[in-house]
């Protein structure tokens, strides 16, 4: 019962956050609303005992992806008026699509009723010493070893491509040389000048 109440609380926050993402005028607020949505969905995942995924969602999406997103949004000088131009012109298309989806969902529920979704078949509670992370690791490194490794290669490709497309070796480029920085001595940088002390008048 408590889980159900918590679910509805988090779900409400999640939907509200998602609405905030698309309605906020300032992209920074949108990004923060998205962070809020992620945290709420992580809480819902905790309720279905997917602890590992919940933590990963917070660590990866909130901790890394969204922070990067905020950086980009704040660093780029985006002219919002320019972006919004033409929005009202195509708004009817959006409304039409939304209406079509609503009609479809209503039609499906109307015809089959909500009984088609069998809630009672949900997840059976696991024993207290059940480790979600362990089970996930076992499956990832046995049954799904091949796709898992491929996903790793995919990340390598993204890395290589990003570096190949952005790294430039231009002459006169200012860059740090860490070993030279470490090897520097005080004598190279600092010149102690002896001066006779001035007399106070």
């Amino acid at each position: 019962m408590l889980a159900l109440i918590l679910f509805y609380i988090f779900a409400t926050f999640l939907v509200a956050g998602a609405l905030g993402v698309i309605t906020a005028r300032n992209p920074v607020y949108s990004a923060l609303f998205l962070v809020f949505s992620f945290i709420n969905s992580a809480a819902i995942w905790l309720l279905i005992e997917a602890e590992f995924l919940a933590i990963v969602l917070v660590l990866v999406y909130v901790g890394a992806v969204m922070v990067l997103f905020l950086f980009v949004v704040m660093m780029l000088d985006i002219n919002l008026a320019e972006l919004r131009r033409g929005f009202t012109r195509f708004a009817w298309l959006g409304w039409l699509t939304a209406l079509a989806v609503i009609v479809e969902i209503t039609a499906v529920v109307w015809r089959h009723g909500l009984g088609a979704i069998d809630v009672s078949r949900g997840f059976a509670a696991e024993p207290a010493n059940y480790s979600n992370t362990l089970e996930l690791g076992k499956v990832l490194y046995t049954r799904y070893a091949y796709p898992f490794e491929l996903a790793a290669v995919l990340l390598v490709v993204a890395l290589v491509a990003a570096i190949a497309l952005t790294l430039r070796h231009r002459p006169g480029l200012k860059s740090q040389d860490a070993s030279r920085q470490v090897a520097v001595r005080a004598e190279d940088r600092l010149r102690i000048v002896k001066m006779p002390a001035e007399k106070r008048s």
Partner: protein
Amino acid sequence: MSESMMTLHSLGPAVPEIYLAAAICLVLLFEAFIGVKRQGATGTLTLLVLAVGAGLTVAFADVTHRVVLFDGSYVADPLAFVLKLAGFLSVAVALLYSRAYLRNREILKGEYYVLALTALLGIFVLISANSLLTVYLGVELLALSVYAMVAFDRESGVAAEAAMKYFVLGAIASGMLLYGMSIVYGLTGTLNLGRIAGAVTAPDSLGVVLAVTFIVVAVAFKLGAVPFHMWLPDVYEGAPTSVTLFIGTAPKIAYFALALRLLAHGLAGATVDWTRMLMPIAVLTLVVGNVVAIAQTNIKRMLAYSTISHVGFIILGFVAGTASGYAAALYYTLVYVLVSLGSFGVVVLASRKGFEADKLSDYKGLYRRDPLLALAMAMLMFSTAGVPPFVGFWAKLRIIQALWESSHLWLVIIAVVMSVVGAFYYLRVVKLMYFDDAPETLPPTERSVGVRFALGVNAAAVLVLGVFPAPLLDLCAHVIH
């Protein structure tokens, strides 16, 4: 101990992928420490890697029957073996041709070769995919590598635009594919293509039709079939010619495998549905590809539309919906890759520093400037047009035979008529090279002996395989059955 040895031994058929993944890391490290100092060394190493890979594939992956590994997500069969060898060969030839081109444009960097190898790994993953998850990972691995290759020349604004178009449209195609796959998973409860084939038995159920629609659209997108072809001419034209050569060849093998594994094997129960959908796509592809190619003045764009028309023929093989149709499509794909390697190779070799030989008028009087290049191009163009005794003739004939056997009479007529239309613009290139005078002095073509020899062998193969078509035809028929 013995158990782990057993497991290692059973991984034999997966050697091509495992080896390639390790080789990618090796090439990447080599580039970081040695390649940056010695320009071109990474390219040589990559060719070596491909040769060793082909040898290892012959030694380990030459299976006589179907082997399923990695809990059903990987399949090795004679078809995969043949396609992987073709993949090694076509990537090696494409990289060999592009070397001077890359140097002239100052994009001869190790990352180019690394991306080519990761694309090849993606191709292999697709060829051996036996689950929806591996299919998708293969598609993305191949696509991501290729997007970066298209954008590789950072000085070129056209290339950046082409890469952007390719990326956005490719993402839409991936979305379509994933949506179709999610419906299939919802219907069958499994990602395994073999089990899906067993579960999808009611072709006319709404869910199956919906899933098949999205998957067909995604496959058509990836192949570049009309009306999902818009990206193809722009990308072919905008990308550096060496990249056009790359994406015009080896990835087609992968997308053939994608269509075969997903539609012909996984969704065999819904053959009625997808052949019905592919039929209009094939007809449109043939007509648009051939007719629009006539109006082109840029040879890369013309060859792009020619690619579209070839895709139409490959799809016709699937429309037949029979084993002989799939075998014909496989034969057509292999022949197409061979001929495209040559014809895009000629464009790469005719380009010099500061001169992109991409106008049709740049080929006027090529016969006088470089007889070998002109002869090779003429043979390749005759083959693409489907003139006997070149190999392109047999490819078209097999597709038409398969359609005839499955009693698609009007498709046979369209295919023949469109072949005749296509012959016009292929033979126009021959006319330009042999009978027109060069308007002004054009820079000389690539003179490197090794590359010219490779191109000569490539063109000769088109003739030899055309005179003796039986071995390759039998091989295609054998691996499909």
